[in-house]
Every structure is written in C-alpha cells, then in structure tokens.
C-alpha cells in the first residue's frame, strides 16, 4: 500500500512537472542559450541570478530531460514547505534540497548540499541568497558558492543568467507577462588554489553578470 502511494506520488509529480514545463514554455517561449557549455549530462552547479520566484521553474524548464532529471534546486524550506501544494512542488516535482533558514535550527546547510552532490546530482543555486530588488544586476554573493567550490573542486560551477523575469513577473504582481525569457549558460568557473573567498566570489559574480544581455533601451 505504501509503495502504491509513493508510486502515485512520483507519477503525479512527473505529470505536474511536464505541465509546469509546458506552461512555462508557452507563456515565455523560454529558451536555453548554451554559450559557454553544452547541454551535456555532467555534474554541475548552476548558479543563477535571482529576481523572481519564476527563476527556478524557468531554468528547470529549459534543461533537456536527461539533465533535468539529475538536477536539484537548493531552496528555502520556509518558502517551499509553507503549504501542501508548495511542498508537493518543492519536494516531489523539483526534488529540492530544502534548507532551513530559521536561526534556531542548528543544521549545517552545507551538509545537505554536499550530500546531494555526492549522490551524483547537479544543483541549481541562487548565491545572492534572496531576490534582487535593486537596480544593480547582482547582489553580493553569499559564501555558499565558495564553500561548495572548495569542498568539491571537480564540479563545474556554471554561471546561469535568467533574463527578463523581473519584467515578466515582478514581486507583488499577480499576472505574468508573456514576454520571452532566455536562460544563458556561461563557461564554468573553478576556485583557484590560492584564491581568497572575496576574490573568487567577485570573479564568479562577474562571470555571471557578463552573460547579461544589453539593455534594449
């Protein structure tokens, strides 16, 4: 009985995933631009800019099926476990690595992230730590990206720029605009032997910001 339930859950998650993907593609005609890497199924950490809650579904939707199945987003547990629908999306559809941000909880998020990498998954992370509401292209990165790069130096860190989503779905708006969203994957970065935390985070941030398309206006 239990296995039947978990089968039904996995099946429903697959269907929901396809529906979500088709919806994202229909609304935004989302497209991947593999500029610095190809869509090969090797282990990667895709680190992306974060302007909207649509960022994650968009990156997820443009990944080819084989890559999508082995890629898990790192996301905030308080957001994704807020209600049953979100929990279903966060846990079953996206198979998120859910991080508890509450200060009183004393577990180390790096443990969960490294465990996911060690089981072979690729990851999607948003190193700014929160949604960027400013006019700057990027907020300063948190240390997580550096810690991952240090702990697992073989994994490719792929800068991933999601364009346009802050116009498609700004914070506080209800109706998304069906504009075209392009997700650009840049050349992977690795931490150098003697590179400091600040230098590496700045370099990784620059590699991501360089992928930003020029402002049309």
């Amino acid at each position, binding site marked *: 009985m239990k296995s039947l339930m978990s089968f039904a859950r996995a099946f429903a998650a697959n269907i929901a995933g396809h529906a979500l993907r088709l919806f994202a593609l229909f609304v935004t*005609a989302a*497209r991947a631009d593999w500029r610095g890497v190809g869509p090969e199924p090797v282990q990667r950490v895709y680190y992306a800019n974060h302007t909207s809650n649509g960022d994650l579904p968009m990156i997820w939707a443009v990944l080819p099926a084989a890559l999508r199945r082995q890629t898990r987003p790192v996301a905030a547990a308080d957001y994704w476990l807020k209600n049953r629908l979100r929990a279903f999306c966060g846990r079953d559809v996206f198979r998120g690595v859910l991080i508890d941000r509450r200060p009183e909880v004393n577990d180390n998020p790096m443990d969960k992230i490294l465990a996911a990498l060690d089981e072979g998954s690729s990851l999607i992370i948003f190193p700014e730590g929160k949604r960027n509401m400013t006019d700057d292209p990027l907020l300063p990165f948190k240390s997580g990206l550096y810690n991952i790069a240090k702990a697992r130096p073989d994994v490719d860190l792929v800068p991933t720029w999601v364009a346009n989503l802050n116009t498609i779905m700004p914070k506080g708006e209800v109706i998304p*605009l069906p504009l*075209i969203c392009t997700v650009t994957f840049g050349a992977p970065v690795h931490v150098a032997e003697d590179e400091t935390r600040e230098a590496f985070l700045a370099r990784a941030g620059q590699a991501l910001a360089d992928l930003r398309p020029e402002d*049309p206006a």
Partner: protein
Amino acid sequence: MTQTTMNLALLSLGVCGILVALSILGEVLRARLPAGQANPVLDTYQTRVQSWWTIVALVAIALMAGQFGAVLLSFFASFAALREFLTLTTKARADHLSLALAFFAVLPLQYLFVWMGWHSMFTVFIPVYAFLVLPVVSALRGQPARFLIRVAETQWALMICVFCLSHVPALLSLDIPQMGDSNVLLIAFLILVVQFGDLLEYWFGRRIGKHRIAPELSPKTREGMIAGLLSAAAIGAALHWITPFGVLGAAGMAAAASLFGMMGHLVFAAIKRDRGVRDWSHLIPGQGGVLNQLDSVLFAAPVFYHLTRYIWAT
C-alpha cells in the same frame, strides 16, 4: 467539396509542388558536397525549407477550416508577434498592468470583433480606445521616467502586431458580390504574392542588385525591388482567377501589397538594427521569430484590406 475548398486545395498543391522542388534541390546540393564537409548556408536553406513546410501546412489547414481557423491562427500569430516585440521595447514597473491588458484584453477583444465582422469597431478599437486607455493605466501608477517612449512603443507594438495582422482574417467579413463565401481565397492571394514577392526580390537583388535604397539598414536594392514588384504583379495576374480583381486589377493589387510588404521589411530592419538584434526570437528554426516571417504581411494587410473594400466590396 465546394468550389472554394477545391481552389484552396489546388493552391496548396501548387505550393507543395514548389516546396518539393526546393526540398529536392537542397538534397541534390547536399549529395554533391564531399562527405563530412559542413556548409552552413545549405544547412540554413534546408532548415528554412523545412519550416516553410510547417507554415504552409498550418496556413492551409487554417484556411480550409474557414473563418474560425483563420481567426484562430492569426490570433496565435499576433500573440507570438506581440511577445517578440514587447520583449524588446522600453518598459517600467508602472507599465505592468497596461502590458498585461495589451496581451490579455486588447488582443483577444480585437480578434473577437474581427470574428464578429464588426468593421466599425475593429478598425478603431486599438487606434482609439487602446491608444487612450493604456497610457492612463500606466500614468495612474505614477512613474514619469521615459513615459512617452514607453507608451508610444507599447502602442506601436499593438498597432503592428495585433491591429495590422487582424486585417488578414478581416478579409473574410468583406461583402464582395462576385466572391460569395470564397473570401478565404483573398487571404491565400495576399500571403502568396507578398511572400513570393519578398523571395524573388531577395533572389534578384543578389544577382542584379547594384543601388542600395537604404545602405545602413538593409541589403535591399532598387533593381531587386523593381524585379520583385514585377514578379509579384505577374504572380498576382496568374492568380486572378481566385479574386474579383480581374487580370490587371490582380496585378495591381499584388504589386501594391508587395510594395508595402517590402517597405515593412525595411522598417523592421531599422527597428532590429536599433535594438541590436538580428532575429526577433528563435521560435521558427532557420527563420528567427514570427516577426521575421510576418513583417511584410503586417504592412501589406491593412492596405490590401482597404483597397479591396473601397473598390470591390459593397
């Protein structure tokens, strides 16, 4: 099978024949390539022909499905075109609601009016009502920076992608005595003369073109345009049997549609150049976006519609 369906099927067969020839030509060129050698020009050509097959199939099915099919296909084409256009225009947070209204209210309403055949409404809805209301919606959110540029670009997007394109299915609601219920053939006529005019203008321009008409914008030449217009007129005359225009009238209408089409192409080249893009999107393999494909039809459609209406409709 009615006479109209019969004629549509004949036209589709003719176009398919041309596509078969173009496809075979591609394969012949491919076979003549030494093994393993890449040829990007040929690759693009073959992807384009493949996309053409899809477009021809879609248009043929839509036209055979009658008014509903034509309105539905144009509706989706307008949606895709508007999406490509507004992706590149100037916007601010304050425009979110007016842009949402453009997509989810103005666009469907315009096609509803076209479907109802409500001429006096669909010809003024966007130029008057949307023109007045959308800037108000943006202004109510109070963000003055680049206001005029923002509302003007949104209005231009609606005019070109929705208003102009909706004149294609609107041809079906014209009352033309000689045509009965076969107005759908006018759509086929318009698309065929404009698209073939474009293709032949390009072809002749590559061969005999010398004097560029707008060197900073596009490789279009005077010689290519004149040859393209004459070809369009000849194709129009050859297709006069599906129109109420007569032989000379059909040649003239084809030339007029083709002329506006080529000018539309030029205008769109200027916009793309300004925004620093080569293609509007990557929706159609080998061709770029829907707008890359439609730019000439967008300019030709309203002119073709009104000429037909003034001269031949009652």
